[in-house]
């Protein structure tokens, strides 16, 4: 480094302190950049929903609903919920990686809004949910799915989907803060998610399940979410359906957002 270069570096004053929202948007920009630099992630994100939608529709469709097309009418809103719930894992893994690399030490020593890095993760989540959701919906439409709720129903359903993703996001953020190996974040997260997702009404109506399981399935927040999604997309949702579907995400946020902040600022 030459002397003139050193001078170019010095005496740089801080510009006006940016707002918390502006901090969060910068982290959102980082999340978006990841799609550009880590396209492998995009591959997972695109292939998994395509695979699940096609497999379940054609393997189960005939047996469960008479035809794949009939089944899709029931299954598509559910697979959207399943995808969003599983997609939340990316943020947690990314967080765990960043913490392991010491990147968050730099962020923590900056004078910024402490929740901004997490808000940025949520921006990445929303992008992922939007991509995966759009893919599933497109495949569904191609295979004959018809949302009777129309454009309004679909938009409302996607908003609910983001709320569900937002709630789930906190689960993996907390796991990411607690667990130092990204793979363990994924496996432990899935260990908790698999029963929730599969013991739900996403794939089948609970009518034929044993009593004890049916009771669980009916109160499972994932089922409540799937039911509300079906209602919104078919134009038959009651306000109550949507309200109970929002309880899960709301409770998760109320409990885990402060936990996140506490874990992050703990030193």
């Amino acid at each position, binding site marked *: 480094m030459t002397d003139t270069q050193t001078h170019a570096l*010095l005496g740089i004053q801080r*510009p006006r302190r940016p707002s918390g929202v502006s901090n969060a948007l910068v982290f959102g*920009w980082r999340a978006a950049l990841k799609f550009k630099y880590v396209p492998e992630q995009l591959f997972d994100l695109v292939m998994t929903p395509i695979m699940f939608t096609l497999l379940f529709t054609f393997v189960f469709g005939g047996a469960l609903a008479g035809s794949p097309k009939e089944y899709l009418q029931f299954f598509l809103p559910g697979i959207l919920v399943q995808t969003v719930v599983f997609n939340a894992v990316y943020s947690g893994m990314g967080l765990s990686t960043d913490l392991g*690399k010491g990147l*968050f030490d730099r962020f*923590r*020593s900056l004078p910024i809004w402490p929740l901004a890095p997490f808000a940025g993760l949520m921006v990445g989540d929303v992008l992922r949910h939007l991509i995966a959701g759009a893919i599933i919906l497109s495949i569904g439409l191609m295979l004959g799915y018809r949302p009777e709720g129309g454009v309004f129903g679909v938009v409302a359903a996607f908003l609910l989907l983001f709320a569900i993703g937002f709630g789930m996001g906190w689960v993996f953020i907390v796991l990411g803060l607690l667990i130092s190996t990204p793979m363990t974040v994924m496996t432990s997260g899935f260990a908790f998610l698999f029963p929730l997702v599969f013991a739900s009404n996403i794939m089948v109506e609970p009518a034929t399940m044993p009593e004890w399981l049916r009771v669980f399935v009916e109160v499972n927040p994932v089922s409540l979410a799937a039911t509300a999604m079906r209602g919104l997309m078919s134009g038959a949702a009651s306000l109550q359906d949507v309200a109970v579907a929002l309880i899960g995400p709301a409770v998760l946020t109320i409990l885990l957002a402060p936990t996140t902040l506490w874990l992050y600022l703990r*030193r």
Partner: protein
Amino acid sequence: MTDTSTGTRLPRAGEEGLLAVSARGLKKRFGEVVAVDGIDLDVPKGMIFAILGPNGAGKTTLMRMLSTLAKPDGGSAAVMGHDLLNEPGEVRASIAMTGQFASLDEDLTGRDNLVLLARLWGFRGRSAKQRADDLLAAFDLSDAATRQVKTYSGGMRRRLDIAASLVVTPGVLFLDEPTTGLDPTARQGVWRMIRGLAQSGVTILLTTQYLDEADQLAARIAVIDKGRKIAEGTSRELKAQTGSGFLHVAIHDPMQIEKAAAILEARLKHKVRRGVEGAELSVTTDSPKDASDAIASLIDSGIEVSDFRLGSPSLDEVFFSLTGHDAS
């Protein structure tokens, strides 16, 4: 030492306004391990101050406490006049920390890493990009600007990591082992940069395991070992503390090394240190006469001395005489 022009603030009572860092009795425990065990530290503004200590001495823990990343279990400290515990936000706004291990986003390019930080500090749009490009140019990274950090060499990462700490000129720059793992040329580059920053008023608190680094770079050195500060002063003062001189002896036959050490220890009444090469010994002497007597008794005992030299101790030897063990 030049006076600081950045981050000028009205001094508080007494000399506090002249201190960039002032710590009293800082303590940090991890379970059973007391990583930092009551350290006092006063770093004047504008100075390069080195914390010297072996692996596990508590250097990183101390730096993390001073940069608000770890909470002390005891003691107190002020950084640029702000209390560490009560005003962490103000402390963060006046410092920058480059940790022991690079804290960069490996997936992003070098430029994007800096743009990200510039935006977080409040530079907008074009000015954030300009800031990133200035830093890249200053650290000789312009050619690699659009490459992902994961493709960078160790030295390039280190430079980028330090650049990332200079988006806004800090009042105090904390550098935790800034040259560990660098080749001699890269190391010289970092040293030049550190001197340049200090000359224009940035206070630098760095840690190192390299005694020559502390010797070359720092105006003052604190030696820490097992979480405690065992000595502090200029390099000259530390050397003086070790005794009037150091006798270095090279023994021709490595088989005779133990015998020679025993004789020197008996005659000079100081602990003898074995050199890295194996056939070398060094020991504090209270006077040149003692030294020559000691050499004479080695020769009388039939030990073939291939070389001997009387000189002031190196920092290695200072460390040894302060702690009773080697630095590494």
